[in-house]
């Protein structure tokens, strides 16, 4: 039999790497063993790599806070002897205190922000601009147009931007008018298009119409040819999980959204418990498995899918939080991470560090963070300090064992980004009017965790996601209803909500003025 060929150091490192990653085949393990048996230097290299692996593991763990070296329940479910369990508990306390002292309460949190710029959907092309721009595809964005700019929507409508229009090209068949006026013409029988303004939508069922902003609240709709339907928004969520449908036998780990039946899959760290409102709610146990994954609503690109919002967004939930409030501890309520086009609502504390995306800048410390990517601005977080100042709650107030109501919302028509707690707006920041939300895409959204490292601790119920900003009156009303044990809103009929309701129909030559907020004709 031939002697085995000695492996190079590089080969041994590759084999050892595959071995410790659990990827090595039987043949590779055998070759590694042979090399280690033959050569003390190979064993040394192997031990060095294992040592590095273990040091990295330790280093990574030290970011996340106290970890007991002796866990009381092992993976196989067997328990330690009672006496040792007591010791382990005591040890865990000692270890936790030691960690806290050694960290000085200032250890930075390593959270994972996916900063990639994922592909964004193309919604239209520019026409009539300068030579460079003509025919250029555009993603959801707001155009501040001169007289000669026009676009062709992905759905086949020609849109002229007039009177210094400020126009959000939000999707392939819809846009939002923030200023000036637009003229929409369908180019063929299959084409379709709608112009929205807050609670109002004008959709073309004929050939051409013009929408002109008269003032901050009013729009004049003129139909030039054919017919246009004027609609008002049905102010109901795009998705809503009441968690009342949990079937302990048939589907103990799935809950369906009441609007579109998007399922939420529950991790092992989530249990169905008695509802804050209705029959069910979810208890999150602060472990890596404490996660409810929304299994759907995705798109291939950013800007696509059910969980893609454009002109506005609201995230609403009821919760009982047991968040520590400590430095480095993040508790997620909701997160969808499509690269840097993420949406999040989470409790955060970066210790003495200023949060990277905070706008406006706030003092370091515990906060409730509402993160959103706005086209033309980028990803920013509205970090509401939990400091008890100016009507803001403290950590203690939000972790008092009681139920709290949260709404985080953004409205591109007013530029207001705000967080409300228990029915009252507590913190707000205003950005320039007309910035569209960029979100949605291929990554699954989660309730109660992110990558297993930011688990929520406590109970979450009645999670609603809207594609518009709830008003202060609606937020107060939702809180009042929830406090009485009722749903946020009356459910008129079972099944999907219709997002828009026809209120008027105009034909060629007619002009009518509507209030964009109330959707009433003047």
């Amino acid at each position, binding site marked *: 039999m031939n002697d085995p060929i000695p492996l190079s150091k590089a080969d041994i*490192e*590759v084999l050892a*790497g*595959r*071995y*410790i*990653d*659990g990827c*090595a*085949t*039987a043949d*590779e*393990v055998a070759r590694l*063993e042979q090399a*280690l*048996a033959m050569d*003390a230097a190979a*064993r*040394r290299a192997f*031990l*060095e*790599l*294992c*040592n*590095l*692996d*273990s*040091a*990295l*593991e*330790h*280093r*990574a*763990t030290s*970011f*996340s806070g106290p970890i007991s*070296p*002796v*866990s009381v329940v*092992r*993976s*196989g479910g067997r328990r*330690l*002897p009672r006496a*040792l369990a007591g*010791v*382990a508990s*005591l*040890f865990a306390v000692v*270890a936790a205190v*030691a960690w806290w002292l050694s960290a000085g309460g200032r250890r930075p949190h*390593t959270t*994972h922000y996916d900063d990639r710029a994922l592909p964004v959907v193309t919604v239209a092309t520019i026409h009539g601009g300068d030579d460079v721009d003509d025919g250029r595809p555009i993603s959801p964005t707001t155009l501040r147009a001169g007289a000669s700019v026009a676009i062709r929507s992905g759905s086949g409508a020609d849109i002229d931007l007039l009177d210094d229009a400020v126009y959000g090209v939000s999707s392939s068949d819809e846009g939002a008018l923030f200023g000036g006026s637009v003229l929409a013409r369908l180019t063929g029988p299959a084409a379709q298009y709608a112009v929205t303004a807050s609670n109002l939508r004008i959709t073309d069922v004929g050939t051409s119409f013009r929408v002109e902003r008269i003032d901050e609240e009013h729009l004049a709709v003129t139909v030039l040819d054919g017919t246009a339907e004027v609609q008002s928004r049905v102010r109901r969520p795009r998705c809503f999980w009441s968690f009342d449908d949990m079937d302990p036998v048939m589907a103990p780990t799935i809950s369906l959204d009441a609007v579109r039946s998007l399922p939420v899959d529950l991790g092992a760290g989530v249990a169905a418990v008695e509802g804050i409102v209705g029959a069910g709610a979810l208890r999150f146990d602060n472990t*890596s*498995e404490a996660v409810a994954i929304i299994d759907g609503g995705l798109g291939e690109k950013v800007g696509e899918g059910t969980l893609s919002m454009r002109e506005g967004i609201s995230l609403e939930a009821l919760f009982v939080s047991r968040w520590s409030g400590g430095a480095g501890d993040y508790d997620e309520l909701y997160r969808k*991470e499509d690269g840097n086009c993420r949406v999040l609502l989470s409790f955060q504390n970066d210790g003495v560090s200023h949060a990277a995306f905070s706008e406006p800048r706030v003092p370091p410390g515990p906060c409730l963070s509402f993160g959103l990517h706005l086209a033309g601005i980028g990803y920013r977080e509205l970090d509401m300090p939990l400091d008890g100042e100016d009507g803001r709650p403290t950590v203690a107030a939000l972790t008092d064992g009681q139920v709290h109501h949260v709404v985080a919302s953004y409205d591109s028509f007013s530029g207001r980004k705000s967080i409300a707690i228990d029915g009252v707006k507590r913190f707000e920041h205003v950005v320039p009017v007309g910035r569209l939300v960029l979100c949605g895409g291929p*990554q699954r959204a989660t309730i109660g965790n992110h*990558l*297993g*490292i930011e688990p929520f601790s406590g109970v979450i119920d009645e999670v609603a996601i809207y594609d518009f900003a709830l008003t202060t009156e609606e937020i107060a009303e939702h809180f009042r209803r929830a406090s009485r044990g009722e749903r946020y809103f009356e459910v008129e009929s079972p099944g999907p909500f219709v997002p828009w309701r026809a209120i008027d129909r105009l034909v060629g030559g007619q002009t009518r003025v509507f209030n964009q907020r109330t959707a009433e004709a003047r």
Partner: protein
Amino acid sequence: MDESRRVEFLAQYKAAEPAIRAHVRRLVPLRSDVDDVLQEVAVVLWRKFPQFRPEEDFRRWAFGVAKYEVLAWYRDRGRDRMTLSGAMVEILADDAIREDSRLHSQREFLDRCLGKLDPRDRQLILVSYRPAARIQDVAARSGRSVGGFYQWLHRMRKLLLDCIRAEMQRSEKA
């Protein structure tokens, strides 16, 4: 065991635990298995602590206990996995005890070398080593396939090892 010995055990174990974990980790291939072995080690150390003499080095004593627990783990659960043989693990365990001081020093240089990585690489590598991290998720979020991510991880570890070795040499010369 009386209260004073219990307190002594806690103090000794607390001081030695990172080293014991590192020692076990060098010998057990999968991170997910380490906690199981460590728990057995902790149980045996606790049971055997009355036999431990105060003049002994607790760490070395614990390493000896850990070696047999690792071997027991290989015997009981390692056989159905792609693992090194028990005989090889025993050799490695003895090597690791002999090399403990040098391996311990290596760990001291990790932070410095991590600091030399691109911040994104540093963050990604630490995220991938978090106890709860699923490589599939981390790989997807980094825009790589699982196979591609492991290759990247291999390159990062090699970079770090080279850096650590260079830092150690520099330190020894100084």
